[in-house]
């Protein structure tokens, strides 16, 4: 009888994990739609191809090596290497019962939950390098990022490496996922350069409006929904009162932070530019979500709203600032995931979850590792196959050059 209850709890926690994982998987669609909405129509097919292909590469690479690196259970806190391909073995009922419920979910459900996270990190990159990077160069980077760069720093924190030991706190990945993805994106953008015509010789910023705002909005709503899985699932367990409450609080705070981000970004944009800039409101939602991701479990809902709102303000200024440095990021990924990722890590201290020192230490380590190693790999790819499509291809549209296809063959005007 008691065993049945332990099994039942295991089943509930596993099911919870799978459902939350499915929500996170859905974020792949969110990134695809957001990015497809915020690029120009002539770059749409290529960004869609990147998105579905990167998700697939992430799934395979994490299966054959990333997951093992990240959760190797090695003693080293620095160098986890252990490449085993995932099998279909899992905890037996005997093991679970013997553990008295300490083993509380299927190992494969854990893999599923983790694999959709690495896809999220990689999705961040695709938006920032949109409209000009070669498709296959990007996909090669995806292989390295998902199989190596992400898992190593993931191990440092979530696999029990030295960042974890240092007291660095990152509940669901403001740092491990979002900052990491944004940093890889930043390295790519630096080597790649801005889209042709984005900045004039005399330093003016030329707007290149996204071609499909409903899609961008849909993408944002998808991400918002998916984030309940992202943060909500990161509690890892739900099968008792305290944990069920914890997951509920995470849901409430995640929602509150996103709401705060939208409102703050909208008002900031209205004050700064005089209009209610939808693209900023959308980025505000995501900024709020990233900001709360490092600690959605400690703040009150009101504090969560404020943390999100500050994220929403930051993102507007960050996007404008990026353009000052001629860092061309068509979807604002670096601002949303990187700058607000750091803010999220710092905000942990607002609810007493960590020390500012530990948080900054973690941010710096993740940034440094990801930036340097990404830069090296981007540079190697640049040398061997090049990062950027030809000027002519970019002008005509990367879709024709890379995919030979138009996204809207019957509609496009200019």
């Amino acid at each position, binding site marked *: 009888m008691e065993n049945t209850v332990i099994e039942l709890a295991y089943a509930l926690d596993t099911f919870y994990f799978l459902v939350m994982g499915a929500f996170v998987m859905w974020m792949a669609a969110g990134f695809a739609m957001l990015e497809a909405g915020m690029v120009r129509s002539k770059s749409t097919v290529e960004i869609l191809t990147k998105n579905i292909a990167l998700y697939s590469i992430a799934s395979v690479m994490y299966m054959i090596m990333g997951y093992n690196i990240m959760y190797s259970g090695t003693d080293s806190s620095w160098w986890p290497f252990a490449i085993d391909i995932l099998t279909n073995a899992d905890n037996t009922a005997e093991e679970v019962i013997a553990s008295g419920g300490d083993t509380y979910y299927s190992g494969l459900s854990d893999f599923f939950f983790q694999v959709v996270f690495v896809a999220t990190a990689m999705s961040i990159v695709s938006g920032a390098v949109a409209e000009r990077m070669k498709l296959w160069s990007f996909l090669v980077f995806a292989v390295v990022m998902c199989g190596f760069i992400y898992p190593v720093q993931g191990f440092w924190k979530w696999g029990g490496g030295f960042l974890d030991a240092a007291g660095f706190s990152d509940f669901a990945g403001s740092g491990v996922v979002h900052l990491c993805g944004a940093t890889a994106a930043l390295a790519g953008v630096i080597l790649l350069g801005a889209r042709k015509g984005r900045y004039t010789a005399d330093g003016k910023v*030329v*707007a290149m409006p996204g071609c499909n705002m409903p899609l961008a909005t849909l993408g944002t709503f998808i991400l918002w929904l998916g984030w309940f899985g992202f943060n909500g699932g990161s509690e890892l367990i739900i099968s008792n009162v305290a944990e069920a409450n914890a997951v509920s609080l995470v849901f409430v705070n995640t929602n509150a932070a996103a709401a705060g981000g939208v409102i703050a970004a909208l008002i900031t944009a209205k004050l700064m530019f005089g*209009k209610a*800039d939808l693209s900023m409101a959308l980025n505000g939602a995501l900024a709020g979500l990233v900001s709360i991701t490092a600690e959605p479990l400690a703040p009150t809902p009101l504090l969560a709203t404020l943390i999100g709102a500050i994220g929403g303000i930051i993102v*507007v200024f960050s996007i404008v600032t990026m*353009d000052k440095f001629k860092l061309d990021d068509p979807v604002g990924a670096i601002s949303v995931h990187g700058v607000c990722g750091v803010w999220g890590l710092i905000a942990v201290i607002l609810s007493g979850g960590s020390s500012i020192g530990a948080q900054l230490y973690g941010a710096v380590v993740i940034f440094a590792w990801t930036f340097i190693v990404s830069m090296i790999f981007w540079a190697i790819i640049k040398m061997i196959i090049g990062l950027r499509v030809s000027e002519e291809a970019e002008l005509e549209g990367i879709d024709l050059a890379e995919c030979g296809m138009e996204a809207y063959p019957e509609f496009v005007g200019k």
Partner: protein
Amino acid sequence: MKLITAIIKPFKLDDVREALSEIGVAGITATEVKGFGRQKGHTELYRGAEYVVDFLPKIKLEIAIDDGLQQGVIDAITQAANTGKIGDGKIFVSDLFEVIRIRTGESGAEAL
């Protein structure tokens, strides 16, 4: 024969079409165009960067007519498309050498 080309504001299309029908114009070809002129474009905003849209949506009408209708057509358009605000548009008149109806091969005034 003459070809009358009129650039008008898009929302005046129905009024102009009716006015032309009334005076016996049997055919019109309309094109969506963008116009640049005295009427100022507007400033749009995207992610903090402003940009000016100089070219405003207009409709171009092309109407082939017999010489006799010229003044009537011009008057009809001038009245129906007028809002009194800058940007109401222009009418251009040029010569048409020949007109052929594809279906029948008729030419000249009969083809109109």
